[in-house]
Every structure is written in C-alpha cells, then in structure tokens.
C-alpha cells in the first residue's frame, strides 16, 4: 500500500513537475498586437506583431505576458495570445469518469469547432460512483476544516488583500 503510494507520488512528480519546470512555452498572437517594453498599456511599443506570430513565453503577470518575439523581449496582452495544447493531461487513461469534466471547462478546443475533449480521472469510474456508499465521516471531516469569518479576515490581512466594492452590473452582458 505504502509502496503504491510512493509509486504514485513518483508518477505525479514525473508527469506534472517536468512540464512546469521545463520547456519554454510557445504561444501565438491571435491578432495584430503591440509588443511593449513593460506590462502596461502605456508602455513603449517595441514592435507590432502581426497575427499568428510565434512567441516564446517568458513570464506571466496579470493581464500581460512577457514574451520573446522577433528576437526582442517585451510584453503582450494575455488576451492577444493563444496557446497550443502542450501540457499533458492527468496520467490517467481509461478512467471512466472520463465524462466528468471541469467546471472550468477542462478540455481543449479543437481547430475545427468548439468541441472539447475531456480526460478521465484515475480511480474514479462510473462504477466507483455507482458502488460508492455515502461517506458521512468524510463529510464531517471536510466540514471540520471550515474557516470562520474572523479567521478568513486575518488570513486576508496577512496577504494584504483589501476588499473592494465591485458591482455585478459591471459584469453583466
């Protein structure tokens, strides 16, 4: 059992940490856009990149991504880039819960349509759910980890998070 755990851990390491630590990510401009000298709309324009320019991603920060393009380093709006699918999905296959996808729309867009492909979950199959007995003990444990308001407020303060008044109307269609 313990060995299995270690093995799994090793697998996780190999599968997840390498891509993150490794290779330069590539992206393409999805429209003609400015390469700027800093991550701001009023940054100096270093070059105008035509649509579909290949860029190397150096760093990300909020709405801007630092890239190298046409031998120059600079910043491009994150919305002006598209990223090819390069990151391996979970090290699972055949997990039947394959159908189970993310609230986040996990999957990738194919070139042809807005169809997305989804990946299975290791160890979570429809059978697992069908055969699962409710686990009130796990529920109790989960609920024991809740945070109260004062705890959440202290936690926010530690990271200098300042609450803002933002109306939903700003996000309405």
């Amino acid at each position, binding site marked *: 059992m313990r060995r299995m755990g270690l093995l799994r851990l090793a697998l996780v390491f190999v599968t997840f940490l390498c891509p993150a630590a490794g290779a330069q990510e590539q992206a393409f401009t999805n429209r003609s856009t400015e390469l700027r000298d800093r991550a701001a709309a009023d940054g100096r324009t270093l070059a105008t990149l035509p649509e579909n320019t290949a860029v190397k991603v150096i760093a990300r920060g909020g709405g801007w991504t630092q890239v190298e393009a046409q031998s120059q380093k600079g910043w491009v709006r994150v919305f002006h880039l598209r990223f090819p699918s390069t990151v391996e999905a979970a090290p699972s296959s055949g997990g039947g819960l394959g159908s189970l996808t993310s609230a986040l729309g996990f999957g990738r867009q194919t070139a042809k349509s807005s169809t997305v492909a989804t990946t299975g979950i290791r160890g979570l199959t429809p059978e697992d*759910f069908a055969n699962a007995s409710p686990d009130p003990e796990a529920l109790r444990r989960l609920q024991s980890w809740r945070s109260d308001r004062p705890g*959440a407020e202290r936690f*926010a303060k530690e990271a200098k998070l300042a609450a803002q008044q933002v109306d939903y109307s700003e996000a309405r269609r």
Partner: protein
Amino acid sequence: MKRLLIAAFLAAVIPAHAQFDIGRALDFGKKALDTSKKLQEANREYSNEEEVALGDGITSGFLGAAPLHRSENLQRYVNRVGRWLAMHTERPDLPWTFGVLDTDTINAFAMPGGTVLVSHGLVKRLQSESELAGVLAHEIAHVVKRHQLAAIQSSAGSDAWSGVGKELAMQRAGRGGDVMGLKSQLASAGVDLVKNGFFLKPLDRSMEYEADRLGVVIAARGGYDPYGLVAVLTMLSQVKADDSGPSILFSTHPGPGDRISELEKFVPNVLERYASQPQVEQRFRQMVSGR
C-alpha cells in the same frame, strides 16, 4: 423510464460542476412536468436549510467515491481563501465548505448549499492564490446564483424526488411538518444523484459564462488580481486532451478559448481596474507544495 431517470439524475448533479446542458435538462423537466403534478411540489423554492441538506447528501455520496486529500493544512488553506471570497457575495452566511480531492484530474465542483470541491490535480497546476481564487470564485458564483438547484428542479419529476415532493406537500398542507424527515429525504436524494452517475453533460453556456463573469467580480472584491481566472483558463487551453480509450468524451461545451474571449468582451473594465491587486504567489507556493 430508467433512461429518463438517469438523465434526470445527471441533469441534477452536473450543474454542480457546471458543464451541463440545461436546455436538455429543461426538456426532460418539461416532459416530466406534463406527466406529473408532483413536480409542482419540488419546484417551489428551497430554503437555505433544505439546499444545505441536499448539498450534504450529494457531498457525502461524492466523497464515497472520491477521497479527500490528506493534507489538513492544504484543506484549511483552501477554506480560508474560499470563505474570504464567499464573504463578499450575496450569500455570505451559507456554511461555506471547501475541499481538495485526492485525484490527479483537473476539476472543480460546486454543490448546492455552499460546498466547493477542487481536485488536487487542478490545484497543483496553479501558480498563485489569485488563480485559486479565480477557480473558487467561479464555483462560488454557481452557488450564489443557485445554478445547481435550477437544474435539479428541472429534473424533479423523477422517482428520486417523489419522496422529497411528498414531504414538501405534507409540509405545505400543514400535515406532518417533519423537518427532519424532509432533510433526510433531501440528503438521500443527494446521495442517489451521485450514485446514479456523475457524467459529463454540457452545462448551459450562459450559466458557465455567467459564473466566469461573476467569478472575476468576486475575486476582485476579495482583493485579488482578477486575471487569475483568465490565467487558469489559459492553462486549461494548453492541456492536451487524453485521447485514449473511453475516457474521452466529445461534447459541445464552451472551450477555454471561448470563455477567455467572453471575459475579454464583458469584463475588461473589472479586469483592468483591479489588475494590480495581489496575486499572492509566495503563500500559495508554500501552502500547496512547500516550494
């Protein structure tokens, strides 16, 4: 009947994690409505207490199949981020509960009543607390807008809900009034929902897009750089689909690229105005991987 039942179950549960075809669910709901008056009982508004009981049932069933991650530190960390965000919504006083599932997949779920579960596979691919906040805020938005309940109610004509319907009817008629009975019916209906399959169903796009937009607002309210969700969607757009075997399921959901475009279109002001708020990378790294 069995197929209808299963479809109804699916319809009911999937909205919990979002990609769910409400149109189809409503269609099922409509057919059921035509054939059963019982629906009316189940279609009334749920109280918070009832919603929580239902959510507990779903969560309990879900946890029977998907174990929780063992790190209590990580669990408590995610709870603090989540609670802080939820405090800045219109439903601050739900018993908000957040958990990390010990699975490598990339996923997140919201249950009625304020329980949000994210997979460890997703958490470890994130780069900052603002990205985690983006994920949680999206799920919180589903709860705030009661997206799950809307879909569950649309499936309410199924047998699974007849017990709930009866209890509700008795209460309405002033007979019985057995709150405990109703709660346990709801909890067991929740368990049934899980047992009968947690499959992919496309969620109505408008609900997904709405949760994205509101998620951006909620993250900004919490003082985070609201671009966190955009970064997560960008990461998702890079994830290579696993195209082996039956685990694949092609469907007609909005892809991450479409969702990023929607955010660019509809919340550019919120994103820009609060872009300089903290991303909180260091604490995130410490808490998630000890890096």
